[in-house]
């Protein structure tokens, strides 16, 4: 009986029984490591033994036509979807498949959704406050107080994302672009080791795009960033290494020039655009 089992695994009930999360171990290379991951919905293979490795501090762009499994891959990494088979490791110590979303998040994996999701009923300030890396168990949250240090961090991020003067506005009334920014801001507050960014520039103006590009490239090095994006221009502007997904598995990998010269890629994906661009 599931209840009994869950009662048996008491760590899910009592916080103090949760083993202290050890810092991510990246001494031997990659920070994220997917091996032979496969997941299917009703027989349709969204991910088909996918292999992917992200190095510490790397900025990686992932491109691919619709239905290539980009979002599903993110779901798997963040624990939202369980793969049918395969391995997913964070550093060399944490098996992500054994964890749920909050645990993964608290390990330092932050995610920005394709569709910007912020807490519309809360103010910009409060959104950031909630995102902030802190003791997120019940009582500490209940008794949490504001202090100068926290404020400074929030202000800092507010500046970075350029929403300083909107801090007391409800997030619900922000423009689409502003929401994107706020969400990125929430990621920054989490101080993640690995950022998963799904289509960050959708619905952004040129200037906003540039700033986003700066931001992301700026983050790289301190943190590892994985960007899923359709906008080729944007990808070119930031990408060092690009991975092309097709039908749930890696089609090609390398620098933008390498992949865009890869005939298979051109055929399945860039082909169309290349012609347009000409």
């Amino acid at each position, binding site marked *: 009986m*599931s*209840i009994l089992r869950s009662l048996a695994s008491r760590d899910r009930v009592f916080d103090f029984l949760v083993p202290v999360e050890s810092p991510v171990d990246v001494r031997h290379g990659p920070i994220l490591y997917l091996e032979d991951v496969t997941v299917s*919905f*009703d027989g349709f293979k*969204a991910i088909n033994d996918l292999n992917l490795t992200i190095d510490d501090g790397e900025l990686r762009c992932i491109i691919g036509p619709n239905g290539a499994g980009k979002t*599903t891959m993110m*779901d798997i990494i963040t624990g*939202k*979807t369980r793969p049918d088979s395969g391995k997913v490791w964070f550093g060399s110590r944490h098996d992500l498949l054994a964890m749920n979303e909050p645990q993964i998040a608290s390990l330092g994996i932050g995610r920005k959704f394709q569709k910007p999701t912020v807490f519309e009923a809360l103010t910009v300030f409060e959104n950031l406050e909630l995102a902030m890396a802190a003791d997120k168990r019940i009582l500490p949250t209940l008794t949490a107080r504001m202090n100068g240090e926290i404020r400074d961090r929030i202000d800092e991020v507010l500046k970075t994302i350029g929403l300083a003067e909107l801090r007391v506005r409800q997030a619900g009334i922000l423009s689409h672009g502003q929401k994107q920014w706020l969400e990125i801001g929430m990621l920054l507050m989490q101080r993640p080791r690995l950022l998963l960014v799904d289509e960050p520039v959708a619905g952004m103006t040129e200037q906003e795009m540039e700033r986003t590009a700066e931001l992301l490239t700026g983050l790289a090095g301190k943190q590892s960033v994985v960007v899923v994006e359709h906008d080729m221009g944007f990808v070119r502007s930031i990408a060092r290494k690009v991975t092309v997904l097709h039908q749930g598995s890696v089609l090609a990998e390398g620098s933008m020039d390498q992949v865009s010269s890869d005939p298979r890629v051109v055929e399945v994906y860039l082909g169309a655009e290349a012609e347009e661009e000409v």
Partner: protein
Amino acid sequence: MRYPPMPGPAAVGARAGSAAEDSEPMHAATRGSWLMVLVLALAFVLGLTLTAPVSAQEAEAADDTAAQALLEALDVSSFSAKGEAIEAIVRSDDPRARDWLQALLDGRLQRTDDGRFVVALDNSGRQWPVEDALTGEALGEMSRRDLERIGINNALRNQLRSAIAVVDLYAADVGLRRASAERLLGEVDGDLAGPLAKVIEEEPDARVQERLIQALAIYRLEQGEFAAIDDLRGSLHPRVRVAFNRVLNSDDPALVDGAREALNSIEQMLKVNRAVETLYFGLSLGSVLVLAAIGLAITFGVMGVINMAHGELIMLGAYTTWAMQQLLPGQPGLALILAIPAGFLVAALAGIAIERGVIQFLKGRPLETLLATFGISLILQQLVRTVISPLNRTVITPEWMSGSIAINDALSLTLNRMVVLGFALVVFAALVLIMRRTRLGLEVRAVTQNRAMARSMGIRATRVDILTFALGSGVAGLAGVALSQLTNVGPNLGQNYIIDSFMVVVFGGVGNLWGTLVAGLSLGVINQVLEPWAGAVMAKIIVLVFIILFIQKRPRGLFPQKGRAAEG
């Protein structure tokens, strides 16, 4: 009237004394005396049937004053006196005797103010068509106010049935003979045994013969005749079992052993029957659940609308049935048939009204629809209370739906529930077809999958919503029509089913008709299997708790919708 206004204790006491005598004839012990008389009468009736044409005229000519006297004797207050009067009628060689007894049994034998006896051919309504009990000539209609019924009690009913049974042994109609043979099982006594043996030899119909043999065998068994056991072996009839049990404490060891051995085999077969019966009960309860829930499976499952007024839509269907029977007095069957489309229509229209009036404003706010529709349910209930009546309404069960089909002597399946079971399956099949095969079904599925996309492909989503909701509501109406045959038709009818319906849908998996079917039937069976040892209440509680826990284990029910759409 039985008793004049109550005077002092003494007088009443005396009457109570007579009341004690009233009950005399009902004790089996005293049956013999008048059964013997019967036999004599029979010999005669038999004789009649041999020389029919001649004796017919004689019968016509038979002295009506004597007959009048026979009937007069029935018109007394004391039941014992009536009992004697009935014997007298049986004893009289009057060919009309059976008709009188039957009329008396059905409460159709009436006395007019001027002392004539008439038989009401149909005693429903205020005006009854009657015919003269003696001459049999039709007397047109009479007001029930001008007629006084010759009342009988249970004791007399028993006496009459046995009497008629014996008469019917010689009836030409095999149906009557079968009925009488059934009746005589366990009623045979010394006086009847002799002639019965003769009847058996002459009986052409095998079934009647077999029955009569058993009937006789029971008597023989009681007389301690060992051979009788073989005639009775394998019969599941309760009376046979009773006979065997009686024998168990006889002093003839051989007989006792034979009886015990026979009993054991009977018990074995009964166990099987019991199981089949429980299964049937479960399925029929399940079919009710399915009927009640299937409409919800559409509105809730497909449209995601929590329609708390669903129960009241069921209620509307039931009331439509009642209204139909009011419109067509005397034809409950026809009314019921017509109520099926009518009930569907009424409920469907109500559904459309609800959808247009409230639900369309609450798109994407399921919890709010829950509250709003709950309000509607309250209004509908109170509406029925004020407009129609707070009292339950009488819905008549047509002949072809009452009674039960005997599978064997111990197992018989009730007809009304069998009809409902079948009805449920038909409705279900129809719905599945609509969803799978029709344009509407296609559009419905399209809209539920992806509203915007469906729109852009030119599907008028609003129209689909209306139709879907109307369909779901209409099916609720059908459920009401069926339920009117099983339970009260009253303002609270809906409330009793709404929670169960939701349980079934959630348990089966939202948006999955098959899930609803399986869930409904299985819950019904579980409930009925539990009931005998857990009791009705506990059974219900256990089922509820089971569902609650099940939802924890599988939040999306038995047959969840899979795939990306359902994720997160």
